[in-house]
């Protein structure tokens, strides 16, 4: 039976979002085509909860490689190991979620195996000649549709946050097969890339232009200490805090967090403008954000002209309500995850 594999990455006891998308898409395609779906997870002391979570996606089997060598990601070890495994088991498709590891591993692995790779896929469609993969290019002007020359293995990495995540609820019946590390890495530890230090990037350290979520404050926040509300919201949403020129001039925030013509130009997925009236100089720095939520006491403030959604009210009153709602949603999600 033909197989479609999903490469699973996890952090702690949670499967990363990109891998959840890859698992869901693998199961969807396998169901449609009558193929077998397989999750492939490598690591050291893989928590049982990760395997349970994999089962909730409805895969037919999980291949587990639990070895000390996999305690840290290494391009060479993973490439060596996966290339041998893929050659031996010969699945038709390997899906990887959109992640830094996939970005590093997938091209190298495809070169080792001599198989085609399409990155940042937004849609997969099976045709008689194999998978046709849609991806964006020349943003935002073009969609490109690729197919593979070889009918053997094809590799696809998914664009982040595009594919729907679908769980089947309780853990489905699936086989867990444990694999061993049957060869030695080709390069000695001395030769490989070493991780010297890892620190968690605080929202305040995050580069504004990278952030997917930006929570910005202006004069309407009234005082520098009220920016802790913005920090709290940004922390909950995994984003960072920005400010208007006025807030920077008042010394409420540092200059490197300023958005606008003389500050940084940002284009996040979500921009929450709190107590910002929307001077043209500020709008020019943020109006290309995908979704803009504006909170301001003045219903005629120019910020509402560019906002996707607006709340007329004092940001200092509105933000605590939103923070509580997000906190509740997060604890709900955690509870659900733990009870599964």
């Amino acid at each position, binding site marked *: 039976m033909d197989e479609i594999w999903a490469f699973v990455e996890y*952090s702690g006891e949670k499967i990363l979002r990109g891998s959840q998308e890859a698992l869901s898409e693998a199961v969807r395609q396998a169901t449609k085509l009558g193929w077998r779906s397989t999750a492939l997870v490598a690591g050291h002391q893989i928590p049982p909860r990760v395997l349970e979570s994999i089962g909730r996606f409805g895969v037919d089997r999980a291949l587990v490689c639990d070895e000390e060598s996999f305690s840290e990601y290494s*391009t*060479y070890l993973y*490439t060596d190991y996966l290339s041998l495994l893929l050659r031996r088991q010969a699945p038709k498709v390997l899906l990887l979620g959109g992640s*830094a590891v996939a*970005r*590093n591993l*997938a*091209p*190298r692995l*495809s*070169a080792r195996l001599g*198989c*085609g*790779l*399409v*990155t*940042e896929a937004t849609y997969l469609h099976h045709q008689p000649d194999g998978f046709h993969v849609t991806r964006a290019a*020349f943003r935002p*002007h*073009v*969609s*490109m*549709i*690729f197919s*593979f020359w*070889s009918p053997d293995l094809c590799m696809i990495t998914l664009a982040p*946050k595009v594919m729907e995540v679908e769980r089947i609820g309780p853990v489905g019946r699936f086989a867990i097969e444990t694999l061993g590390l049957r060869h030695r890495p080709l390069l000695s530890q001395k*030769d*490989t*890339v*070493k*991780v*010297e*230090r*890892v*620190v*968690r*990037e605080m929202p305040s*350290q995050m*580069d504004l232009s*990278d952030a997917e*979520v930006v929570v910005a404050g202006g004069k309407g926040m009234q005082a520098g200490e009220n920016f802790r509300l913005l920090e709290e919201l940004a922390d909950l949403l*995994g*984003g960072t805090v920005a400010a208007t020129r006025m807030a920077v001039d008042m010394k409420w925030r540092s200059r490197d967090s300023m958005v606008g013509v003389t500050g940084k130009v940002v284009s996040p*997925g*979500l921009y929450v403008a709190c107590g910002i009236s929307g001077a043209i100089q500020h709008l020019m720095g943020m109006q290309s954000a995908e979704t803009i939520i504006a909170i301001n006491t003045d*219903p005629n403030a120019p910020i*509402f002209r560019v*906002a996707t*959604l*607006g*709340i*007329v*009210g004092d940001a200092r*009153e509105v933000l605590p*309500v*939103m923070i509580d*709602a997000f906190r509740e949603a*997060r604890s709900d999600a955690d509870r659900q995850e733990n009870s599964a």
Partner: protein
Amino acid sequence: MKGKGLGIVVPIALVHDCQYPVVIDPASKRIDPSSFHWVLNPLDTIALEQALRIKDRFPGSWIRGICICPPFLEGILRECLAAGADEVVRVWEEGAQEADPHGIAVILAATIRTWPFHLILAGWRRADVEHGQTGSILAELLGLRQVTSARSIDPRPDSGEVRIEQRASGKIFTLSCPLPALVTVEKGPMLRYPKFPDRRKAARAAVLCLGLDSIGLTEIPSPLIRLERMTPPKPKRRSALGAVAGLSAVAMLQRIVSGGAPARRDGNIHHCPDKMSALKVARLILDEKLVTLP
């Protein structure tokens, strides 16, 4: 290796400037070449600037750019020379424009293989087609260590390694990698603005052009993926038309109306202080999957 500095190779791609729209030919389902506005790949220019800074720090270093491009685009490549690259090599053969990322990496590897170098610095992807594959494939073909998506690069020739800062999944990693290595860059300072005398000098400089036979290849490598067609992207689904939990019919209508920019003013405003609006908006953000809670 020349002098005591580092030898740095910077693969350069010429890409379409995505500020300008491209035209898709309805017959061939490919981009009409006349709609291209060619520029140096912005991420490759960041890699070049990183290389120039290393050259400033370690006198005796040299930078060689390499690009697969037709003769009529040679003028754009001279910008690299004007900025401070010591040499630019152009590789071209008719049909090279059809090569996929793997094919491009094979051509680059065949050219670079014979050169002495310490570092290959490249942008992590092209700004137009955004494959993001060539760097890693090149590292595999040359048997090099690789670090992708670097933010800062700090070579230490004395200890024969390079320190790299990389950001991923909300973490900052400091990595050390023995030389020689291939590093792809994601962010960094913009390419310096060349001085006028350097521009004049670059305009007169010779650009070495190599054909496939001079790099030991007989034909353009067979592609592994096939471009079926290009289409304009499908319009985005209006999220307001989907099920929106907790919104009244009026609020839904307001959202639909506010989808068009000119109608946004007053179109979609929730009035506080009942605080329910804030709650609704928070729910809406989650229901519409505008964010994924970390």
